[in-house]
């Protein structure tokens, strides 16, 4: 099935000729979005707020690890490009029991934003190309690729399995 989230990220990587490590914050800025880092003591990871003129702010929890922040910023750009209409999106909010249904409803959007972020930060073509050059052992490769793409090892491990390049460990 054609996936519009992945397609949109691919298009962005191509049109801007992005090469790993993708300068995600600069990319976000080109859409009139500003990145604001703000401490939050809790589960909130990031947010997107749109002004009426379609510019906006991407807020990131500055207490989170730098690599997680990178992924969160890419995730919010995914929301921005794929999910128009909502002025405010906050990710990582722990919802209470009563709101379980409403959080379920937005789950497809979360999956899309994650797929977008993965393709933007770890473009499949570039992961494949780099993967061929370091195939000595899988754990070692995860580490090398994570540093090339400037993502966490967990994100890269998941990506490699997802692209069928590694087996599920």
């Amino acid at each position: 099935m054609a996936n519009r989230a992945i397609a949109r990220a691919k298009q962005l990587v191509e049109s801007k000729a992005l090469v790993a490590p993708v300068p995600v914050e600069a990319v976000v800025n080109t859409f009139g979005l500003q990145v604001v880092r703000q401490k939050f003591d809790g589960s909130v990871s990031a947010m997107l707020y749109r002004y009426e003129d379609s510019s906006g702010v991407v807020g990131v929890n500055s207490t989170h690890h730098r690599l997680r922040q990178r992924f969160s910023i890419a995730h919010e750009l995914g929301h921005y490009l794929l999910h128009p209409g909502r002025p405010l999106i906050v990710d990582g909010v722990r919802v209470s029991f009563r709101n379980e249904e409403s959080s379920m409803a937005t789950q497809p959007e979360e999956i899309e934003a994650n797929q977008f972020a993965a393709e933007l930060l770890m473009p499949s073509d570039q992961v494949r190309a780099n993967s061929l050059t370091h195939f000595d052992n899988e754990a070692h490769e995860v580490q090398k690729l994570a540093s090339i793409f400037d993502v966490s090892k967990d994100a890269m491990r998941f990506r490699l399995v997802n692209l069928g390049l590694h087996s599920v460990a």
Partner: protein
Amino acid sequence: MDEFEVAVASAVGADIAKRRVKQELRQQDLAGVIGRSRTAVVNIEAGQQGISLAMFLRIADALECEPAELLPDQSVLQGLISLGIQDDDLSLSHGRDVSEWVRAVVAKGRNG
């Protein structure tokens, strides 16, 4: 109060508290200037008590700030309400923190 009124009271209360601390006033001091009890100030700052427009202006005056500085951004509040994080006891305290964080981010974004 309906959920929007709760969200407004909560946001305004938080802004009043922040401004009061900045002015180095105690709750008791503010209470004295606006002619209410300290408990009333506690409730207003906690968003547990709606206030009249006249009282709001009196508070802004006491805190030596423009009334607009104490007013929340309506679309931020609407967004928070749509997330359902203001509407029940389970999530109220967490909701207030999130609301503060979101508003701080938006304010920084605007000023920067």
